[in-house]
Every structure is written in structure tokens, then in C-alpha cells.
């Protein structure tokens, strides 16, 4: 296998080299796909950014043209073709197919944090270290940076994130005689009973189809279910004391019929918000604006709060969602592609536009502390400065959470194990064990060494 990869690499480099020779290009304009090389000099960058180039960019961010326009205004020689091939899990199979076919892959692609290892594993991401990747570190929130970089390289540039908070209906809470959001999960459980008794609403809903949310809750509880060394070794610890604690907590509420288990992001669920079925949603920083569009008739009745804590006095959160823009191996213009990704997610105007126009929760410390962002008062939340609250939460996310290089499988097997147990109100604890076993079996079958 090693031999074969080696042969393939040689072939590719030969092909690249001969193309370069034949077309009379200087090697600095292309080549070095994936492998680490010497840093690119400023002269090389200047040259590349003045050479007429067209970049293809796969993304599903709506109206991203406005940020792309900012880039094109700064670098008139570079044209960026924005292509939306589908959201997240729709895009990845297409990207993999294009990569396997050896053509049709974009220069830059949007990739969610949890899928970065899977594209790293197939050597599909260009290490940005030679392109000034390391210098970016200080610009981004620490936990976010750790999602895209490790000691072996910088694999992508963070675009947005989703630290967890708690959005709750202050009107339902006060109808139940509760004056504030639960500070701890124990408070949450007792509030759940009060709210159900006094108002008939569920305090919350735990979907059986959304591994992202429950993994975010695991993250907040201090669990480290996944690890990956970037090569062949993975760690799978889905069935741990921390995850069992989370699962048992929700099991209790579900068994007492204090939490519903509807599938999320579909019509019935949207209506649950506008019809007072759910009194709160433990969601990510992108949640507040999303909810605004979903339950417009409840405007002014919501309040944003921090996520309840496992230990009183703590202040820790997890993350749910967020994505980055990676340079894809095989690009003929790695410099321009890297500069584009860095500009899009690093330039002050571009990141602020993302935050205020597309409501992508920022990842740069500059934007997170910018008063243009945090100062926005939201009518839907009764005039609360929701961004300010979530900007504070971002600093409390545990910094060393990792993913497996096959999250597609991890998430689809969630639906068949723990997710089904949630939806059927069955035994979640043993389902968690079944999930662990399924993921371990898959990892071994795929040839990984499981720690």
C-alpha cells in the first residue's frame, strides 16, 4: 500500500512537473499539492495575486458573493467562481467523487470542522503552513483554531462556529413562576417539572436525528469521545462516564415526559416553537437568528442565556456546528486559493459582513470583540444583546475536542443506535454502548488502529 501511494505520488509529481515544463511555468505557481514545502515568499504571493486566475469555490453560505466581491475588488486579477453543490452532507460525497476522479474538484471548499479529519485522511487538504497558515493562529479563538490545525499542519481557515447557549421563552418561564434561566442542569430538571405542571409545555426537545446537538452536549460535559492522530490511529470513547452522565440526565426527563423527542429541522419541529410546545432550545450561536425566522410570531418572548452547568459555579460550554474553507489538493493555484480563504475569513470587513449580514457566528477575536457585532440589540429577544452573550460563551468552550476521520459513518450510525433510542424513548444508556461498538467495528473494518 505504502509502495502504491508512493508510486502514485511520483506519478502525480511527474505529471505536474512535465505539465509545468511543457507550459513553461515557474514551479512556484503550482505544484506541491499536499506535501509540506518551504514557505512561499511574499514575492511569490504578489506574483500569484497579479496573475489572472480563476478559482472555483464550493460553498453553501447564502449571498456569499458579497464577501467574494470584497476579495475581487482587492485582487482584480483573481476571479472566483462560487458554486453551491449542496449543504454539508450533500456536498461531501460530491467532493469525494471529484477528488477520486482526479478532476472537477474545486480550489477551495467549505468543510465543517467535524469533517476536516476525513478529508485530511485522504490527503485532500493542502497544508496551509507554507502559505502563512501559522501566522493566522493569533487571530482566532483558541478552541476554533484547534479545530483546523494541529502539530502537523494547518488544514483549513475557520469561517464560523456555534458555541452552545440556551434560548428560552421568558413568557412561559414566568407563567410557571420562574424568574430566570436554569444555572445548572439540576435546576433545568426541576424547572422542567415546574414548567410541565404549570404550563403544559416541554422545557425542551431532544431530537433523535441530530448527533451534532448531543455531541455538543457531550463536549460541554467534558467528554472527549474522539481522537485522531492524522494517520492511522483513532481513539473512540463514546461510552464514557461523561457521556453516560449526559444520556442518563436526558433519559430521566424523557421518561417523565418532560422533554419531547421530535426530529428537528422539519416542519413539525418549527411549529413546536411557534405553538409553545417547547419552552427552550439548547442551541448554538447560530440558533438565535435561525429561530427568529422560524418562530416569528413569538418575537420579543425569547431570552438568550448561557448553557446550564454540570457543576454550580462553572462556566463551560460546547460547540455545535461551524465550518471552514479549505484549499483542496490538486489546485493549480494554491497561493491564490490560500490567500482567498485567508482573506474571506480573516479580513475585518469580510468577517464582519459574515457576522452581521449572513449571521455566521464569528471565529476571529477581532470581530468577536468588535462593537459593530456585539452591540447589536435584537428585538426578537426583547432588546437583548445576544451577540455579546454568545461572544462571551465562545471563550468557555473546551479547547481540545477532536473528531474521527469518518464522521459520516459515526453520525449515520447514531441514527440507528442512540438516536433511535431517543426517538422511541427506549434505553439510551445501552444504545450509547451500541453506538460505541458500531463505530469501533467500522474503524477496525476500515483498517484503523483503535486505541
Amino acid at each position: 500500500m505504502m509502495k502504491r501511494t508512493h508510486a502514485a505520488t511520483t506519478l502525480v509529481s511527474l505529471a505536474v512537473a512535465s505539465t509545468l515544463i511543457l507550459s513553461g511555468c515557474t514551479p512556484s505557481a503550482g505544484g506541491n499539492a499536499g506535501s509540506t514545502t518551504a514557505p512561499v515568499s511574499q514575492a511569490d504571493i504578489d506574483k500569484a495575486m497579479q496573475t489572472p486566475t480563476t478559482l472555483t469555490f464550493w460553498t453553501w453560505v447564502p449571498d456569499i458573493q458579497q464577501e467574494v466581491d470584497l476579495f475581487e475588488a482587492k485582487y482584480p486579477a483573481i476571479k472566483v467562481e462560487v458554486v453551491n453543490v449542496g449543504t454539508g452532507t450533500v456536498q461531501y460525497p460530491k467532493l469525494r467523487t471529484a477528488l477520486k476522479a482526479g478532476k472537477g474538484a474545486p480550489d477551495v471548499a467549505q468543510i465543517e470542522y467535524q469533517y476536516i479529519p476525513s478529508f485530511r485522511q485522504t490527503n485532500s487538504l493542502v497544508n496551509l503552513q507554507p502559505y502563512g497558515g501559522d501566522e493566522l493562529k493569533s487571530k482566532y479563538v483558541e478552541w476554533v483554531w484547534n479545530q483546523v490545525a494541529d502539530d502537523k499542519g494547518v488544514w483549513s481557515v475557520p469561517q464560523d462556529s456555534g458555541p452552545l447557549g440556551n434560548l428560552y421563552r421568558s413568557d412561559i418561564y414566568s407563567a410557571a413562576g420562574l424568574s430566570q434561566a436554569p444555572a445548572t442542569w439540576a435546576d433545568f430538571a426541576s424547572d422542567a417539572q415546574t414548567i410541565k405542571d404549570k404550563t403544559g409545555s416541554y422545557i425542551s426537545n431532544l431530537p433523535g436525528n441530530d448527533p451534532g446537538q448531543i455531541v455538543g452536549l457531550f463536549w460541554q460535559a467534558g467528554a472527549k469521545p474522539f481522537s485522531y492522530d492524522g494517520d492511522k490511529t483513532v481513539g473512540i470513547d463514546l461510552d464514557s462516564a461523561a457521556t453516560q452522565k449526559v444520556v442518563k440526565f436526558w433519559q430521566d426527563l424523557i421518561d417523565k415526559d418532560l422533554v419531547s423527542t421530535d426530529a428537528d429541522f422539519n416542519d413539525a419541529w418549527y411549529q413546536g416553537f411557534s405553538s409553545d410546545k417547547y419552552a427552550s432550545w439548547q442551541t448554538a450561536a447560530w440558533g438565535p437568528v435561525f429561530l427568529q425566522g422560524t418562530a416569528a410570531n413569538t418575537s420579543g418572548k425569547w431570552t438568550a442565556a448561557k448553557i446550564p452547568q454540570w457543576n454550580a459555579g462553572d462556566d463551560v460550554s460546547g460547540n455545535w456546528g461551524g465550518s471552514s474553507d479549505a484549499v483542496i489538493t490538486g489546485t493549480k493555484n494554491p497561493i491564490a486559493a490560500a490567500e482567498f480563504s485567508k482573506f474571506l475569513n480573516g479580513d475585518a470587513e469580510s468577517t464582519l459582513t459574515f457576522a452581521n449580514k449572513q449571521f455566521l457566528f464569528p471565529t476571529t477575536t477581532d470581530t468577536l470583540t468588535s462593537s459593530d457585532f456585539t452591540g447589536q440589540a435584537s428585538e426578537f429577544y426583547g432588546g437583548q444583546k445576544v451577540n455579546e452573550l454568545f461572544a462571551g460563551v465562545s471563550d468557555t468552550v473546551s479547547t481540545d475536542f477532536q473528531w474521527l476521520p469518518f464522521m459520516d459513518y459515526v453520525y449515520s450510525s447514531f441514527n440507528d443506535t442512540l438516536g433511535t433510542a431517543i426517538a422511541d424513548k427506549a434505553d439510551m444508556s445501552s444504545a450509547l454502548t451500541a453506538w460505541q461498538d458500531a463505530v469501533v467495528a467500522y474503524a477496525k473494518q476500515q483498517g484503523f488502529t483503535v486505541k
Partner: protein
Amino acid sequence: MSAAPPLRRTPPSRASSASARRSTIRRPQLFAAWALIVPFLIVFAAMFLVPLGYAGYLSTFTSQLVGGEVFSGLANYSRALQDPSFWAGLGRVAMFLFVQVPIMLVIALFIALALDTGRVKGGKFVRLAIFVPYAVPGVVATLMWGYLYGTDSGLIAQLFRAVGLDAPTLLSPQNILGSTMNIVSWEFIGYNMIVLYAALRSVPTEMYEAAEIDGAGAWRTAWSIKIPAIRPAIMLTIIFSVIGSFQLFNEPNLLYSIAPNAIGSDFSPNLYAYNVAFKNQDINYAAAIAFLLGFLIMIISYVVQLATARKERLS
């Protein structure tokens, strides 16, 4: 995009048939036949045989994320035969075959016979109304039914509540198979009805007159004359439905977004193969599952045809 308008292009068949006529005058029909069939054969080979062969080739390899591809012979097939997910999916489509297909075809046949008697008022309208669901794309149909089935705000649940009953949970794991059967029946009753109705219209009316003279009533005529007369059409609808049930994919795939946990990743063998290929990234194993399913469909279609052929010989 810059292609010339198709009218101006010379069809390749004309050139080849012209040269064929010059070389052999003896059997021009044969060459005309070839000329007509070759375009089809080319497309058939390129779009069907080659991909099929490639899938067969892929299914004999095992690929791992770490370790790459190695030739593994029939290992994927034996893995599929021991895979509970594959069998669970097959079990569900077998239920489809033995429950949904008979119900659907009996209803279609009944409507076709009723329309054929000419006693149904507004027969043309009824025919169209029953056929229309087939014209609705399966995607739209499934989404529409998904809304009707909704537990909180679905129309069916609302109707139950309006008369003071507990709303049925049509999207729960226990009921989802029945709910899917209902969607598929709704979609295909009209199609099967039209096939059967068309066959009924081509039965010579003299036979009915003769039956009437012999004193046969409408039921007797239907049972003893009409149904035997359209047996080939009935067989056709059965074969199509058998194949259709084994290939169940669209409906569960779309219901997945509404009832993810009830559908799961292995509701039908096709859906399972799809998930194995694109979520588990195991294209080789998916190819093996698809091939195995193809074999099963072939065997079952053959058995169905054999059974009817024997029946026809006997009668």
C-alpha cells in the same frame, strides 16, 4: 452548448445504411435492422452494460480508508449475506411484495373492471382522477404525504383530534412501513389501473355478447371472461410491481428527513446500498449489495414468469 441545431446534423445511421446497401444488396432488411438498432446498442452498452460490468468489477474488491483497495473475490458477497441490515431491508421489501402489491393490484383491477362496465358516471373523470397521482413526481407525493402524516399538525392527526380520538402516530417505527405502503399504493394504483383498463378495452365485445346470451351476470362476466382475457396484462403489472417493491428507494429516502429514526439507514436494500456507498464511503460493498439485489430480482421475476407459464400450459 455551442452544438449545431440537431436538425442539421446528419444522422450516423443514414451513412452506414447507405454503405451497407451498396455492399450487400441481398439482405437489405438485415442491415436496415442493424442500422436502426445500433444507436440503441451503443447507448445500451455505454450507459448500462459498461457501468454494470464496472460495478461487478468493483464488488470484487475491498476498500479500506486505511490500506486502500485489495482484490477480495466474493468476500463482499459473503459479508452481505451475513449482514443483518441487508436482511432487515429485504424482509421489509418482502412484506411490501406480499402485502402492498396484492392490495394495490386488486384495487387497480377492481377499478379497471368497474370503469370497463361503462356504468360509472363520469367515467372519464374518475379515470383521470385515479391516474393523476402517477403523474405527480414521487418526491412531491412523499413530501405531501409526509405533511398529512405529521403527528402534531398533520391533517390526519387533526381530523382524529377533531372527533375526539387519539391521533395515530403514522411516522412511528411501528407504522412507518404501512405508511410507506400507502404512499406507494396511492402513486401506482392509477398506473396499474390504466394498463389493465387498456387491456380490457381490447377484448372483443362479441365475447361479452355471447356471455350475456348464456345468461352470465356482470360479476360472472368479469371473473370468467374479462380477467382470463387480460391475464398477460395482469402478469405485466405483477412483474413490474415485484421489481418496483425490491427497488424501493425514493419514498423511504424522502421520509427519512421527516422520520429519521423510524426509517434508519437500512429501510430497504437500495437505501442501504446508497448509505453504504455515500455515508460509509464503502463503494465496493455497496456494489456487492446492489448486485446481490439484482440477482434476487432476476430470480423472483423468473419464478413468477415460470409459474404463470405453467398455469397457461395447464389451462
